[in-house]
């Protein structure tokens, strides 16, 4: 049986853990709100961009205007996979879900055909000890995530694609469904899928006047579209990370409370027992004394 002091020590230890988890929950909640606002603020640009691209690609259908190396599918086995995780843990299954999802994809091709770009410390640490080639990593920027990070990453993979280092580029990241739901998803980044661009083209038949011409606009638009896609993935992952951490820390705080309750009951019982025992000793002692006097 644990002594009173042992139980007390454990209660105090759990209490201080609870303080930390509660603080982490509050921090994550505050950051989550900001991250969510950013995701929403970026939507008009991304939506309009996809629509424009749709109009351009389908509007000038068949002609050479809609041809671009970033749009053309290639027959080739080389895949580059961009894996986006957080730098930090303590966010439930957030990181492991993405890593597992990426692993499924990575294992579809032979090891030699796959190259990785890892974003976030968790992805790097996982894949560093494994046989796949890591072409590039990006770490330690999450606190100051800006569009320039997306540009850097997107321009790198586009260059890899154009140089023939990869025939396909995929993105694996946590999609932000809601505060409590993050889902690992895979998105084909390159070549830019034509179906994706065609969907938004409700006004595909519009005859635009292009200046200077459709081709050069497409040349400008496609890289920006890819950067926007990457930016969205980064922001969703960040919002998802905070959501996951908030949920995880909430659960941890609740668990700590349950544990404290159980330990407190144990403590009270042990204290009661001790008192009873002491009382019995005294009563027993007194009894013995009186009995000794009577006889």
């Amino acid at each position, binding site marked *: 049986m644990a002594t009173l002091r042992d139980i007390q020590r454990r209660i105090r230890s759990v209490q201080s853990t609870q303080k930390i988890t509660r603080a982490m929950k509050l921090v994550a909640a505050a950051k989550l709100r900001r991250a969510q606002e950013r995701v929403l603020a970026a939507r008009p*640009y991304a939506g309009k961009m996809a629509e424009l691209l749709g109009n351009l690609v389908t509007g000038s259908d068949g002609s050479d205007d809609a041809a671009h190396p970033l749009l053309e599918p290639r027959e080739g086995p080389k895949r580059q996979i961009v894996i986006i995780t957080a730098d930090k843990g303590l966010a439930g299954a957030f990181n492991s879900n993405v890593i597992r999802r990426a692993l499924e994809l990575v294992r579809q091709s032979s090891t030699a055909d796959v190259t990785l770009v890892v974003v976030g410390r968790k992805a790097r640490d996982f894949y560093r000890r494994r046989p796949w080639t890591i072409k590039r990593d990006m770490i330690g920027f999450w606190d100051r995530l800006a569009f320039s990070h997306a540009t850097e990453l997107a321009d790198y993979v586009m260059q890899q694609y154009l140089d023939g280092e990869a025939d396909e580029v995929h993105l694996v990241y946590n999609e932000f469904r809601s505060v409590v739901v993050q889902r690992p998803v895979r998105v084909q980044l390159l070549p830019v899928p034509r179906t994706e661009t065609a969907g938004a083209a409700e006004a595909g038949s*519009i005859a635009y006047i292009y200046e200077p011409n459709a081709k050069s606009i497409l040349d400008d638009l496609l890289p920006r579209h890819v950067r926007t896609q990457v930016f969205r993935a980064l922001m969703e992952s960040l919002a998802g990370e905070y959501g996951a951490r908030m949920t995880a820390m909430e659960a941890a705080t609740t668990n700590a409370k349950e544990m404290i309750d159980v330990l407190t009951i144990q403590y009270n019982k042990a204290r009661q027992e001790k008192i009873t025992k002491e009382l019995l000793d005294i009563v027993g002692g007194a009894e013995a004394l009186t009995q000794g006097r009577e006889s």
Partner: protein
Amino acid sequence: MADRLTLEVATPTRLVVAETAEEIVVPGRQGYFGVLPGHAAFLTTLGVGELMYRIGRDEHYLAVAGGFAEVRNDKVIVLADSAERPEEIDRARAEGARDRAERRLAGRSESDVDYTRAMAALARALTRLQTAGRRG
């Protein structure tokens, strides 16, 4: 035909302007173009410069750089790499950028890659300063 235009200016990080205006002047890559209600469908790339939109007698300015502009059914959509209102511009930073660009330009030939880059930086800085000067 409507007698007004809807204008939306968005950057990758935010929606900067959503307004109705009577006249809009946009810095296209091949020069400024004006848009009045009834304009033909038009799609172009953006240069660096000042975007103006007029509501009644009030003219509003934005410093924009890079991206696209679309005109369709009296709706003007500008997707810019950057777009700032006069009051949002950091004057000191723009002046710093201008001076840096000017220093880089001094003593470089036009064929230099850095020359083109410095020229672009200079254009952005000058536009920002011009727009910032319209404050208040």
